[in-house]
């Protein structure tokens, strides 16, 4: 009797999913849903410096989007950054993962060392590379000069044609190891038999990679692209610390633009609108990608 009672009481309390979901719902509501709706609301208002208050402006912020040169410039920067970084990180990441997958002496140490770049805060990594790319005493500048890629005393980050590459350098340095880790985990979970069959069938290294490894790694690669791609699209820390978007708008990313509008120019409404644009682009591209590659979460 008492036992039955207890069981009933317990099931009433514990079987319902709501109590378990409440903390998550609260966090989501506080950190995601509320800011989202607040941004949408904000995008229809603008701070008036003269009246010192928010004023309703209707669709004006949204209309401005279509006639904003800085926005188009920042979109070009963001997309270039995204495409170049992703390509390099994918190819380098896969190459290194294939190399490190072998069980040679010392490779275990190398695999461990790889994770080091990931624990450095991006802003700090940005500062490091800012110093290393200094025109006078930066080591990267020195090396590039020595091998003849740039002229003496070239300030990489202040040269229009080089600035984006200068920022991409830290991006690729810091995040390629992330790809390596994901790919290595993927490679290690592949079955060995198909590779042995390929060995007997006489396939070359390249043929084995292209026809067997790569297709089997498809889902892993798709997930890596998704995680990294979304992050790349919101690039902020590096450009903020290293170039502030310059020279001109050569490294002026979308996130930086939204930040600048909101906090430097106190145009809260337009800043919110720009953030929503970033969100919309990421959502559309990510879902398109998920749909195309049939990734299942």
């Amino acid at each position, binding site marked *: 009797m008492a036992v039955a009672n207890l069981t009933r009481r317990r099931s009433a309390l514990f079987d319902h999913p709501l109590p378990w979901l409440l903390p998550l719902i609260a966090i989501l509501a506080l950190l995601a849903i509320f800011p989202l709706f607040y941004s949408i609301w904000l995008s229809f208002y603008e701070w008036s410096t003269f009246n010192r208050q928010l004023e309703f402006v209707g669709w004006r912020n949204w209309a401005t989007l279509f006639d904003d040169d800085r926005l188009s410039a920042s979109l070009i920067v963001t997309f270039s950054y995204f495409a170049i970084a992703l390509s390099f990180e994918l190819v380098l990441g896969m190459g290194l993962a294939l190399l490190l997958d072998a069980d040679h002496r010392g490779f275990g140490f190398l695999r461990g060392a790889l994770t080091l770049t990931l624990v450095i805060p991006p802003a700090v990594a940005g500062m490091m590379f800012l110093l290393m790319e200094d025109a006078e005493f930066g080591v990267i500048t020195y090396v590039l000069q020595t091998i003849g890629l740039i002229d003496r005393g070239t300030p990489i980050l202040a040269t229009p044609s080089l600035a984006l590459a200068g920022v991409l350098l830290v991006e690729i340095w810091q995040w390629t190891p992330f790809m390596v880790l994901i790919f290595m985990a993927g490679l290690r979970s592949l079955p060995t*038999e198909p590779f042995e069959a390929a060995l007997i*069938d*006489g396939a070359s290294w390249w043929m084995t990679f292209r026809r*067997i490894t790569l297709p089997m790694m498809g889902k892993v690669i798709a997930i890596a692209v998704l995680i990294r791609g979304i992050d790349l699209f919101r690039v902020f820390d590096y450009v903020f610390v290293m170039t502030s978007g310059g020279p001109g708008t050569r490294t002026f990313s979308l996130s930086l633009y939204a930040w600048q509008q909101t906090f430097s120019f106190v145009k809260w409404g337009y800043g919110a609108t720009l953030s929503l644009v970033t969100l919309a682009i990421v959502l559309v591209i990510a879902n398109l990608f998920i749909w195309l590659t049939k990734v299942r979460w």
Partner: protein
Amino acid sequence: MATVEYRNIVKNFGAVEVLRGLSFQIEPETFTVLLGPSGCGKTTLLRLTAGLEIMTSGDVLIAGERVNDVHPRDRDIAMVFQNYALYPAMKVFDNIAFSLQVRKLSPDEIRRRVGEAAATLNITDYLDRYPKELSGGQRQRVAMGRAMVRDATVFLFDEPLSNLDAKLRAHMRVEIRQLHDRLGSTSIYVTHDQIEAMTMADEIVLMHDGEIEQIGTPDEVYDRPANRFVADFIGTPSMNFLSGEVVADNGSPAFRAENVQVSLPDSVPATSGRKITCGLRPADLSLSETGSINGKLILAEKTGADIHLHVAVGDRNIVAVVPRSANVAAGQTVRLAIDPAKVHLFDAVTQHRVN
């Protein structure tokens, strides 16, 4: 076409000795079956032959050439893996065609060969599917097809039928043997199933614990097992073993144990008192009024074709296979007889055959 020769093959995995110095030779165009219980090292030996594993010491020779350091692709072998090892991301057609694509054959030639193999294996309808969309039996046939399109000199099969149902297995036994005869290649076929070995093999290599127990034709290993292990492993139901001693019965040798007296051929030395293990195949025993093996029938199992009698003889149970017409009932006392020529004798200590 090609011989395969093993010289003193030793293979250790860490401290575990898996193969302990195997030496034997496989003649060209024979269908050789490596038979032995699970874990005796059959797969390991096959993988060494293919070059997928490196031996601790010894030499493998294919067509007279030492191949220890030859890359798997240059050994001219085809292998059917125990768990198929199909390429998961390729359709069945490409799975079969892959080795031909690697060798850059013309698309027409590839289509012809794959089509031929698929027709033989009855998988033409599945060429457009992925391995994960096939049943175990279909996958197995794809794995076979992959080996078939290669005109390799040596074919290696690792328990390719172990995952099939009984009917398909019986069918595939015939298919594989016919394929071998048609291609005229040298085949090494691994199995733990003695029926497969007996039905398919030209030559059986019986392995146990990384050593060879006996090499011979199916008839040889059945009729003259070299030791007690082989005698026990080959044949269903398994051989009955009785411990006893050799006695002289009116000057001719006989085997005696509790409730048992079996005459032996005169060729057996009648050293009285010699401890010995006597092996009697269930099928060689028959019911007879004058039989010298006395026991009590505990169970008569009908299998359809015949009856398996479980008879308590002294403190042991022995099995006899008799025709279904035999008129017996459990509880009854029975007498069994055997032709002296069909008695197998093993030394009680070494377990080696003595007659």
